[in-house]
């Protein structure tokens, strides 16, 4: 059986790894020194609940069973393994004196948080096209395809500000 290319998050910078679909997740993580420790969990793929249905206050997600094979976990399609994460990540987005709050799975992309935040703040997608999420307190603007697990670095909380993207020279 051909090996598959996977992306391992949560054990330092995200890295590309290869494994067989028949490999057991526990063994793959052990090989890469990425087994979860006490109180840490592993998630698979990408959760888009907040993007597809932004009304619920939290994601319904179950951590991955380490005893299953990569094939059984759907990894040949889902591709991403998020290890050593908290059970959930509580996200607050600050904007114009409001600060909506929601609990996300660690395998949520920033793009999903942005969609949810605009929905909760009743921001029109066209009018708010230039709004992006800036991390607090670092001030960094993460990529839309960054995962919360990569930003939280083991923490169970993240705070963003919704800010207008600028082209800093300013002149158009």
């Amino acid at each position, binding site marked *: 059986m051909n090996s598959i*290319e996977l*992306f*391992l998050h949560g054990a330092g*910078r*995200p*890295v*590309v790894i290869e494994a067989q679909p028949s490999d057991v997740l526990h063994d793959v993580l052990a090989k890469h020194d990425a087994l979860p420790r006490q109180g840490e969990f592993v998630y698979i793929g990408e959760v888009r609940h907040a993007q597809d249905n932004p009304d619920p206050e939290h994601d319904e997600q179950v951590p991955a069973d380490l005893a299953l094979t990569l094939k059984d976990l759907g990894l040949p399609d889902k*591709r*991403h393994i998020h290890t050593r994460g908290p059970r959930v990540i509580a996200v607050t987005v600050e904007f114009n004196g409001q600060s909506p709050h929601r609990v996300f799975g660690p395998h949520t992309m920033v793009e999903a948080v942005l969609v949810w935040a605009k929905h909760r703040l009743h921001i029109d*997608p*066209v009018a708010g*096209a*230039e709004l992006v999420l*800036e991390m607090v307190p670092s*001030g*960094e*603007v993460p*990529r*839309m*395809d960054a995962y919360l697990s990569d930003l939280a670095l083991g923490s169970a909380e993240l705070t963003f500000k919704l800010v207008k*993207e*600028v*082209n*800093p*020279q300013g*002149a*158009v």
Partner: protein
Amino acid sequence: MSTNAQRLLEADLAGAAFRAGLLHGDWALGGTTAEIAWPYLFTYVVAAPRPNSPEQWLVRWDATNYGSGPITGGFWDAQANTFLAKEQWPKARPGSVVASVFKTEGWAAPGQGFYHPWDRTALAGHTWTDPVWAWKLEVTIAEYNAQFHRWLTSEDYLGQ
């Protein structure tokens, strides 16, 4: 012998950030890493559907000094083997960041670079003062393509 810049680029093209976007269908590399005619490489950046507009935009990147400073690039006409004619560059809502980055008039390298602090042709003669948006070592070829994919799928992007 490969230069440091070439080795850094090859490592980033094989890295998780670039490969993930590629597998996600956000962009594609033109050819293979082995086929790169240094310092130029091509990527196809996928765009949101707009009437009479391409599904993806071909960008030629000039990766000179890759890893130690901003690179540059431009939308490319593969048939003519030159920069895409200015009038064919992506359009965006006037006043938007997307329109600013892709503008083809009124700066040093119109139609041959991107008006943004991550493009070295735009840095010359300007003071890009805001550190939040400045180029930094962490800005790899993956970040360039991710940013362009975001702009080309933005509500502000109007098509060709």
